[in-house]
């Protein structure tokens, strides 16, 4: 059979370590998909018109290759396809196939489940780009704008990574799913993104930092469990994505650091908690944003007790966080576990087979990880001599998914009546007034080295560049 291809010089346009130039199946799939992706990026990607941005591009998986920095026009960014190094001796670490060699092809038996997992993961990646589309216009500094775009292009690359798996391993059905990843849009009425949290807008930079801290951290844990997968290409893809995801966490962690630091400065300078008038974000408001983003992200882990997660584990397609470091039989067929429960108006726990408790297990890992940020931010407050502390609300607070959905639990873990909860809700979650105040602070600062009033400058620049480096060029 003949057809007009390749139209695209694949290796030049698409950095990769998957032998794209030698794989006509992938080439054909990408030939059709890549123009659609670029259209999507044009329509749904960052709305700010820039000349070029100082971005990191992965051109290889090695130490030198994965972090290649340069000023790049956004629409010429080279989204690549990378898998971490192949380990020919790798075996499946858990489930009923434990000890067998990992799969290099999709086992037909698990096609549907694997495809679903990849589609759900893939759906979140472009969603956040869509959610953050207009943020660039109000960036508090060029440094922050650059970080936003870095996150955006990498979310784009993560979409590529999932699309690569769909194209390379799932045949025609995979190609159709890859198309759908571009057809669904965040917040769309007709075809929204699959997971609720990814249809929420990211209206301001505080939300952005919260999102990258809390919601991208969910992504880290999901990727971490997929990295354990017996389907080796998925495992290797996720392992490489985790490196990039770490940068997104960094943007969130340091972003909230800097907001807290600035608030502390203003509190001291003006000797008041009410820093709103001084162009800052009060600690109570920061706490409300934490409450909201943390709880929405907890929902992403699904039901406490999940037969899907159990099936994925037994099948060997999705493991636990750091599966191989765990000290058990990695099959869990006869073990028991505990999951959170809400029964007769009481917060309690149920004993269930360990296999059914895997979502709870992962959420637990996530919660512990989230606590590290709180420690950082409270240390900043402490050093500034401020008494107040930020905290993570109770796991049952403001939940829409799982055991606590429908329960009325306060941030400190007390069960209250619905009317009571609603009456006090404005003290716990961002109100319209809070959001209006935060939005009112969002003015772009485009001069190199300058910073908005509500946030402290970063302590260092990107890739050893100074903070006042011109990270973004405009036309």
């Amino acid at each position: 059979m003949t057809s007009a291809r390749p139209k695209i010089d694949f290796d030049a346009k698409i950095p990769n370590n998957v032998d794209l130039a030698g794989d006509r199946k992938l080439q054909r799939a990408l030939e059709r998909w890549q123009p659609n992706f670029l259209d999507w990026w044009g329509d749904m990607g960052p709305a700010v018109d820039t000349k070029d941005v100082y971005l990191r591009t992965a051109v290889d998986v090695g130490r030198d290759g994965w972090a290649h920095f340069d000023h790049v026009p956004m629409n010429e960014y080279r989204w690549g396809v990378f898998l971490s190094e192949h380990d020919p001796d790798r075996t499946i670490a858990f489930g009923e196939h434990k000890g067998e060699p990992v799969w290099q092809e999709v086992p037909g038996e698990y096609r549907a489940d694997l495809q679903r997992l990849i589609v759900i993961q893939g759906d979140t990646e472009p969603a956040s780009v869509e959610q953050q589309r207009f943020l660039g216009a109000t960036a508090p500094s060029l440094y922050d704008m650059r970080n936003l775009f870095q996150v955006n292009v990498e979310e784009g690359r993560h979409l590529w990574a999932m699309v690569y798996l769909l194209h390379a391993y799932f045949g025609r059905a995979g190609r159709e799913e890859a198309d759908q990843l571009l057809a669904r849009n965040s917040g769309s009425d007709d075809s929204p993104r699959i997971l609720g949290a990814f249809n929420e807008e990211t209206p301001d930079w505080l939300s952005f930092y919260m999102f990258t801290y809390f919601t991208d951290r969910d992504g880290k844990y999901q990727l971490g469990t997929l990295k354990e997968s017996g389907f080796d290409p998925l495992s290797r893809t996720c392992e490489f994505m985790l490196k990039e995801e770490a940068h997104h966490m960094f943007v969130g962690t340091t972003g909230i650091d800097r907001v807290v630091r600035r608030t502390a400065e203003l509190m001291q300078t003006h000797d008041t908690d009410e820093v709103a008038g001084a162009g800052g974000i009060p600690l109570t408001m920061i706490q409300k944003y934490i409450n909201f983003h943390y709880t929405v992200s907890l929902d992403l882990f699904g039901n406490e007790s999940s037969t899907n997660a159990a099936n994925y584990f037994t099948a060997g397609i999705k493991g636990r966080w750091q599966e191989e470091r765990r000290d058990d039989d990695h099959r869990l067929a006869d073990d028991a576990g505990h999951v959170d429960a809400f029964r007769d108006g009481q917060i309690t726990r149920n004993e269930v087979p360990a296999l059914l408790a895997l979502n709870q297990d992962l959420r637990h890992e996530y919660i512990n990880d989230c606590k590290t940020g709180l420690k950082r931010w409270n240390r900043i407050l402490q050093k500034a001599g401020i008494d107040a502390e930020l905290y993570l609300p109770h796991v049952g607070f403001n939940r829409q998914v799982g055991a606590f959905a429908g329960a009325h639990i306060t941030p400190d873990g007390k069960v209250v009546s619905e009317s009571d909860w609603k009456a006090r809700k404005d003290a716990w979650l961002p109100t319209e007034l809070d959001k209006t105040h935060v939005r009112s602070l969002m003015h772009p600062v485009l001069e190199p080295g300058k910073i908005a009033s509500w946030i402290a400058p970063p302590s260092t620049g990107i890739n050893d560049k100074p903070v006042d480096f011109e990270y973004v060029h405009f036309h």
Partner: protein
Amino acid sequence: MTVLDEPVNETVAPERVPHVDFDTSPDRYRHWRFTVDGETATVYLDVDEGGGLVPGYELKLNSYDLGVDIELHDLTQRLRFEYPQVRSIVLTSGKDSNFCAGANIRMLAGSSHPWKVNFCKFTNETRNGIEDMSAAGQTWIAALNGTAAGGGYEMALACERILLVDDRSSAVSLPEVPLLGVLPGTGGLTRVIDKRRVRKDRADVFATKSEGFGGRKAVEWKLVDEAVARREWDRVVAERAEELKGDRPADAQGIALSPLARTEADDAITYDHVRVTIDRGARTATLVVAVPEMTDDPAALHEQGAAHPLLAITRELDDAILRLRTNELEIGTWLILTEGAVEHALAADRLIADHQDDWLVAETTRFLKRTLKRLDVTSRSLIALIEPGSCFAGPFLELALACDRQYMLEGTFEEAEDATLPSGAEATEPATLVVTNAQFGTFPMGNGLSRLESRFYGESLDDVPRDTPLTGADADDAGLVTDAPDDIDWTDEIRILLEERASLSPDALTGMEANHRFVGPETMETRIFGRLTAWQNWIFVRPNASGPEGALRKYGTGRKADFDQKRV
């Protein structure tokens, strides 16, 4: 009914289940003999008690097992092809006072579930084949010279006329329900009401009355056509054989059904034109039907006889289906391919379409029809792979249409290793299939519809492109294939499909496929293979039949079955 004097509690251990061979010939029969006198043949059931297929039971009272039925099947084929001048066939017993006690109970009680199911399926196909013979001018007459119980009576029910000797003791009966807690599994319940039009209340009385009915009562209730006194017996039987002669050409010269040339290896069965390879890891069998050049001249069929490609292919395919079905229970998916020039298949198509007035062409066509019907009731996932180098045209397109799904390569293979057919690897022309007259009624399914009608049930067939080669894309547009991937997608699509299929429950697949294959009208045949068989197979696995206290196990032990009384 075979009377047992010792309990039967063990099932047939795997090592005792033989590799079943369907080859036989009259000189090797142990249970049957037949005579041909002019235009009438007389077939005697004369079971060798010690000739069971599996050790562990005696075939008393002319009871039968699969081995007996394999001979009957062979016998029907001989009468069709070797004695085409025969116009009536008298079925009787070679024993003095007993016609047939039906399927051997000890054999049934000791058999595994799949064995029982396969046994019933094959016997049902043979009974249907007997009716197909009568329809083709070789009329079967049951001359019950003694009691016909259970499967024995069901054998008579497959005949067009039933004569029962009226000796005040011989009877016909269906004692399965009252004595064994199972159903008459070879169409008995169905034929009593559908074919013989026995009223349902009388059928209910009859099927629960273990001793059955004889004489006038049996005639009055339409269970038999005539009760004939002993002294009249020979004369009446001969008269009926004369009166009921079907329509056959007087000058028909039979052809010999020579033994099939077949070589068997562990994972392969190879015939002249059909070859089967088994992948035990993947639990798939690949059946390739190679169609050689042939002429559309019926004289060649008469001259070559069993060696003629169309007849040879049909025999080989039939044998392959039976062997895989009986001996390879875990091979759950069959990939069906054809190989050869489309023109070869179209020559066969013309032979069939233009020469139905030739008895041998017509007989061969009916044989192919029955073989295709075997596929329809085969409890395996059937997938047609339509690759370059194939010839799914006319009669051979029926093979693809009988499958649960059809995958056709659009274009050719760029990489030789993707091709299943060696000849397809180098093919420079894409695969085509051709719809012909053969899709419009020549090969009806059990539901009376063609496979094409069944496929597009309730829709017009006017737009189906006929007599023109269709590529993958054309066939996909016409709805004749499930999908038409190109060579880039082919290997992955097929591999994933097969792996996914292999991971599904074999029981659920069997049930699903059987439901999807038969749309539309119910016929006696679909009722036998659907309703009757499905209920029977359910009853077979229930403790009330097969459990240690079940009726099938307790029969002949002197102890009663202990039923779970809940109605389900």
